[in-house]
């Protein structure tokens, strides 16, 4: 007895639902198979020559995924053209996306990652996790390879000092930070000139300037308390480093006992806390996000804003004409400190990685070598007004930007006195605590002593937690 009504459409519906029901677990199986495929991806190999140091196979496709954020992705398309010129038989595919982690995580899990990834943006993948999981190719051979412009110079020699630190894990370079950012105070030259103020060379000079600014009816400093209070942690570390030397920072990064209680760190935290207690912050800063705070700054409600050199590009659309954005190096607590006044907190960002399981690892490295050529670096700076890690690529050229000009000058003055701290990118737990506690300090909810003891307690907890992979520098 046929119990089903002889209606075609209903049967067809049932059949298609059954197909879906079967297809779902099947897709899971596929993913599982792909996941176990292992490390066979590096097989494609060409001949190693002076022009092709990694032995890229001529016709191996290259899959590039770029974060399409503040710098857009046009510069990457330019670099891809350079690569394609070298390997005309290779098919270069490009995707400029914003949600790096969301889109790439499944590909990593399935063992099918792209050949080059610009791991940046709010949805970037946690670098330390990728390294700990063995997902990234070691780039030491890239650094030892001859540079694209001069066969007698290695790639490493063309890079600014400290540029590789953020991607160095236990001495191994696992990524290439491409954009070079220095942090300091930003101000409108026009505003300072109008009042006859000049950028100070000592911390006392800075607080005296702040007092004058306040008297003139402008808030001396602003910060974005809800999203980026940690922008203002950079001057704290700069003061500590200039006072006590880079070892002070290294001790903090290495989770050493009492690192946060060192005298220079204490003095630095007290100096920052005194800005809060003197009422030098724009009222309500703790409730602004960094965009709102930066906006208040370009509108002239606050005179000084601490940020990285990416700020010019970020605020391009709303900066009024004649603002003349200029960079000011954080002045030291005393003239007899361990680092000169010109020393800079410098971090290279936009970290490019080559996944270990990529199909064309050699091509990925070759692409990075191409990105580090003078031609590619100059093009990047020209289009974004941001500097790359390539030393002196743009010379004195400022492409019509007071901000870029002042940053280039500051980097020249600093020479090799560049420093950075890495613990927030190494230990996510510590990064979230830092965000909370520096916000408390800036809002005047805690004082320097409480701030330091809370950071020390969290650092000790991370050090004692065996489940967290530790790094040393």
């Amino acid at each position, binding site marked *: *007895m046929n119990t089903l009504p002889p209606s075609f459409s209903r049967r067809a519906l049932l059949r298609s*639902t059954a197909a879906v029901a079967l297809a*779902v677990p099947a897709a899971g199986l596929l993913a599982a198979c792909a996941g176990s495929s292992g490390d066979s991806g590096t097989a494609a190999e060409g001949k190693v020559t002076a022009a092709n140091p990694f032995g890229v196979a001529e016709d191996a496709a290259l899959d590039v995924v770029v974060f399409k954020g503040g710098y857009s992705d046009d510069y990457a398309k330019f670099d891809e053209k350079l690569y394609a010129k070298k390997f005309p038989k290779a098919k270069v595919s490009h995707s400029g996306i914003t949600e790096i982690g969301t889109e790439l995580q499944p590909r*990593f*899990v399935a063992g099918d990652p792209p050949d080059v990834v610009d791991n940046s943006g709010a949805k970037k993948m946690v670098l330390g996790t990728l390294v700990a999981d063995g997902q990234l190719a070691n780039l030491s051979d890239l650094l030892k390879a001859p540079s694209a412009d001069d066969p007698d110079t290695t790639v490493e020699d063309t890079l600014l000092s400290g540029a590789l630190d953020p991607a160095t894990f236990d001495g191994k370079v696992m990524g290439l930070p491409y954009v070079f950012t220095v942090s300091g105070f930003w101000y409108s030259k026009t505003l300072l000139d109008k009042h006859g103020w000049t950028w100070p060379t000592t911390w006392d000079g800075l607080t005296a300037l702040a007092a004058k600014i306040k008297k003139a009816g402008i808030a001396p400093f602003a910060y974005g308390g809800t999203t980026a209070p940690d922008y203002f942690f950079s001057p704290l570390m700069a003061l500590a480093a200039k006072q006590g030397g880079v070892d002070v920072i290294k001790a903090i990064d290495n989770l050493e006992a009492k690192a946060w209680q060192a005298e220079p760190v204490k003095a630095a935290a007290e100096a920052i806390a005194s800005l809060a207690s003197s009422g030098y912050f724009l*009222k309500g800063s703790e*409730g*602004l996000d960094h965009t709102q705070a930066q906006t208040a700054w370009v509108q002239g409600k606050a005179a000084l804003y601490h940020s990285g050199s990416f700020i010019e590009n970020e605020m391009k659309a709303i900066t009024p004409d004649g603002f003349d954005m200029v960079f000011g190096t954080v002045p030291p607590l005393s003239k007899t400190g361990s680092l000169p006044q010109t020393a800079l907190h410098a971090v290279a960002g936009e970290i490019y990685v080559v996944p270990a399981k990529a199909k064309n690892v050699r091509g990925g490295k070759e692409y990075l070598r191409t990105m580090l050529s003078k031609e590619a670096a100059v093009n990047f700076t020209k289009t974004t007004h941001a500097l790359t890690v390539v030393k002196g690529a743009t010379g004195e050229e400022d492409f019509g930007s007071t901000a870029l000009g002042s940053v280039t000058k500051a980097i020249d003055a600093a020479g090799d006195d560049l420093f950075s701290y890495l613990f927030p990118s190494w230990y*996510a737990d510590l990064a*979230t605590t830092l965000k909370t506690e520096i916000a408390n300090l800036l809002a005047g909810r805690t004082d320097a002593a409480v701030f330091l003891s809370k950071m020390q307690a969290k650092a000790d907890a991370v050090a004692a937690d065996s489940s967290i992979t530790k790094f040393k520098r």
Partner: protein
Amino acid sequence: MNHGKTRIILLFLALPLTLYAVLVVSPYAQAFQISLTSWSGFTADKPFVGFDNFQRLLQDPEFWRALAHNGLLLVVVPLVTIALGLFFAAMLNVGGSGGKVAGVRGSAFYSRVYFLPHILPVVITAVLWQFIYNPQIGLLNGGLEAIGLGGLAHSWLGDPTVALWALIGVLVWAGVGFYVVLFSAAMQSIPKDIFEAAELDGAGRFQTLTRITLPLLRETVQVAWIYLGIHALDAFALFMVLAPSGGPDNSTMVLSQYLYLSAFQKGNFGYATAIGVLLSLLSLLMTALTFGTSRKKTTIEF
């Protein structure tokens, strides 16, 4: 033909049950399985660690803090939203004066105004309130100063004592319109003669509300309570936009946000999934409690 019947039943049930098992039950089971691992989210293999994640959670002060915030939301948000919803619905439908059962003057206009926030996507609501709460140029502080209450101005999202309440305010603002409509529909299905009889007996507006309307709306209110409770346990999108890192001094961190930050900022999917498992258990528990405590009731028919 009993045999044939069983076959039909099996045939018709097998498919939806399979679908349900594959698409609904298995992800839950998988989530539970992941919560027992230290999976980072990027590898094919997931190292098994037993109940470690749950043990860690119980000792994690930030987890307890987030849980407490969810607890507060769970009490305050439904209470305030339902109270306001009932009040507005009553005013719109039976609150009018003048001898007949109708809403206050202009009720058609008000009902549209109340509903408006509900049709905005959550993210837009959040961005809107970002501007309202802006301590520099915000509407709220500006408004307070304009009416001479400048002393009440706050850095709403930057002050740990008020930040959570500021977010609760937005939750209620965005939610109340829907419940006004829900309660209105329920009130309109109550026969008018009941209200007329009450009025003839000399009942005032307040008495009508508490003695007639509310008891007859019991079941609707109960449903609303569950909806709002689940809403309060989640509260993710709004909190993520208005207080992306958990608010000043973690004062607005909720479980769903802690889950997200653990997974995507700390690269710790196993731990995050354990939070998710606890969160879903809490939702189930809350639903069971709400239905359980209100089992006994006399249905009023009209």
